[in-house]
């Protein structure tokens, strides 16, 4: 029992979370001076170490334990103020003092409190008073938010699975492990948005497929779902099929490539397999300034290299060809491609939910603190003395002044003074 009690005390200690965060910060500092990508290195280290995962999990456990402890305290105070049952524990209040005095002064004190806007309740031997709105719901929401946030990170650390695939117009969606292939991508559309945050929107329209899913469209944000994974478009690319003929390559060579050549001006190249040649492609910027990805009017520019020697350079639209000095390059077709990550991560939902909780908690706390913070007073007559307790979530000086005034009035063996 004692061990459990100590364990509970440690688990619900306010200092536990900052200590654990401090340890991870120290770890980060140590890694930062020996590795380039320190944050990634830390994430990978924690994800691969059960003891670090266990240490990290103390944070949401601590937040949960704090929430339980504070909820118990809140309920104890509510009981005390409401029907007067329960023991007056000093730890529930900010100040507790015992003075000489008699319960005969309570009615006058109650009138004084009522005059100051307090609601009062009392029996002969007790006087309870309160005013304002408690910020405890905001506090509870905050603790829940931090617990969810760190739980979300834990789930991500342990269970995030990411698979990268190319989503190509006219081609079926990549099949994820354990799932049937998806439908064919009918269209990839990049449209100007005109919003204040997004300049462009992307939509991937998919036909019904063997997986039984109906026709649907994947957007940018919030990310869509595909067989339990989030669809996270990363980069825009170009799928290009070419044919190459050269003097020493009469039979020609043909290939399909996914190239990172968007936006226009970016270059990407590949070796032509089985030949000494290398083709470096880029997209031409249309003269009218339009976005070829949006319009679909692609003109590919290319450089044909052999080693470091440039043999020829030119351009051709999709379906067109270019010939020079015995070299012939045909751009058979160009398709839109979106390099996409399919991410399975249950932690993301928890982190989003925690963000919502944080915002609500902050707004709630601010409103209550500004408008009408909670103030509570309890007076108990015990023998020749009175035990008085005070708790103020805001406007502490003002509340303390009233509290002292009431104590002065009650502190008399002869009874209260009139005020």
């Amino acid at each position, binding site marked *: 029992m004692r061990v459990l009690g100590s364990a509970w005390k440690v688990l619900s200690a306010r200092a536990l979370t900052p200590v654990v965060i401090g340890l991870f910060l120290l770890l980060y500092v140590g890694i930062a001076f020996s590795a380039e990508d320190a944050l990634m290195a830390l994430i990978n280290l924690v994800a691969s170490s059960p003891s670090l995962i266990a240490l990290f999990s103390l944070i949401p456990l601590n937040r949960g334990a704090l929430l339980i402890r504070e909820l118990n305290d809140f309920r104890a105070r509510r009981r005390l103020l409401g029907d007067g049952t329960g023991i007056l524990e000093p730890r529930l209040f900010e100040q507790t003092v015992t003075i000489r005095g008699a319960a005969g002064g309570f009615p006058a004190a109650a009138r004084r409190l009522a005059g100051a806007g307090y609601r009062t309740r009392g029996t002969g031997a007790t006087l309870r008073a309160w005013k304002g709105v408690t910020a405890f719901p905001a506090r509870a929401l905050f603790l829940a938010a931090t617990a969810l946030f760190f739980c979300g990170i834990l789930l991500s650390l342990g269970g995030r699975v990411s698979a990268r695939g190319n989503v190509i117009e006219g081609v079926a969606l990549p099949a994820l492990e354990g799932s049937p292939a998806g439908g064919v991508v009918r269209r990839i559309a990049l449209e100007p948005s005109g919003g204040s945050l997004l300049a462009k929107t992307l939509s991937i329209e998919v036909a019904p497929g063997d997986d039984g899913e109906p026709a649907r469209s994947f957007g940018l944000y919030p990310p869509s779902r595909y067989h339990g994974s989030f669809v996270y478009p990363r980069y825009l690319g170009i799928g290009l099929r070419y044919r190459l003929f050269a003097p020493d390559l009469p039979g020609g060579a043909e290939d399909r490539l996914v190239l990172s050549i968007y936006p226009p001006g970016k270059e990407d190249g590949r070796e032509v397999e089985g030949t000494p040649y290398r083709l470096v492609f880029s997209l031409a910027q249309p003269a009218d300034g339009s976005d070829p990805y949006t319009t679909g009017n692609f003109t590919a520019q290319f450089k044909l290299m052999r080693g470091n020697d440039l043999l020829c350079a030119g351009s051709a639209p999709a379906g067109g060809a270019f010939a020079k000095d015995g070299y012939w390059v045909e751009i058979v077709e160009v398709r839109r491609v979106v390099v996409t990550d399919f991410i399975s991560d249950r932690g993301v939902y928890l982190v989003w939910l925690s963000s919502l909780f944080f915002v609500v908690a902050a707004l709630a706390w601010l409103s209550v603190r500004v408008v009408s913070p909670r103030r509570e007073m309890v007076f108990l007559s015990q023998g020749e003395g009175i035990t008085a307790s005070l708790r103020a979530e805001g406007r502490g*000086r*003002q509340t303390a*002044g*009233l509290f*002292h*005034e009431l104590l*002065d009035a009650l502190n008399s063996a002869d009874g209260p003074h009139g*005020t």
Partner: protein
Amino acid sequence: MPSIIETSQLTRNYGEICALKPLDLKVPEGEWLSVMGHSGSGKSTFMNLVGGLDRPSGGELMVGGENLLALSEDGLARFRREFVGIIFQQHHLVPYLTAVENVMMAQYFHSVPDESEAITALQRVGLGHRLKNRPGELSGGEQQRVCIARAIINSPKLLLGDEPTGNLDHKSTLMVMELLKELRAEVRFTVIMVTHNQEVAAWGDRTIYLDDGVLVREERVGQR
């Protein structure tokens, strides 16, 4: 009863003018002492010395166990802040501050202001309905009651009054004197009241008469 004030050969000279000749006097704790005399008799000089507002030229002066001659300027200032409350004939309230703020000013110079305590003090002197009024909006008697609240807010052991009812009508004078009597009974401070009014002097326990800086007569006055 122990003495709160003890003087021995206390004198005060202003150049060649001897405002207070050697004075031996003991004032027991809790006593209400009235000091009477004609203009220039040394009453205010005596009160200023006892209140730490002036330094004696000679003799000894013990107030509340403190030897005022031995105190530095800072020490005297602390003594005045913590030990003495003064009510003047001219009120000396700050005209642009409300009644509550005038009382809080005394708290500020003593320690820290506390509005709740200031309000309680004003309610005690019967001005709970005039808290937010400035001195210009108060009658003479009300202003003097604000002064009383200001004087006692820091729980002084010694309350000095320099003709506090000099500018008041008869009714207001009675009200102020009744209030002082009640407060003295509650808080138990010693009162030294300088006055030239026999009726006012009669409220005290004892009256001393000063003439040209000399204590010429002393009378015990019965309780009213």
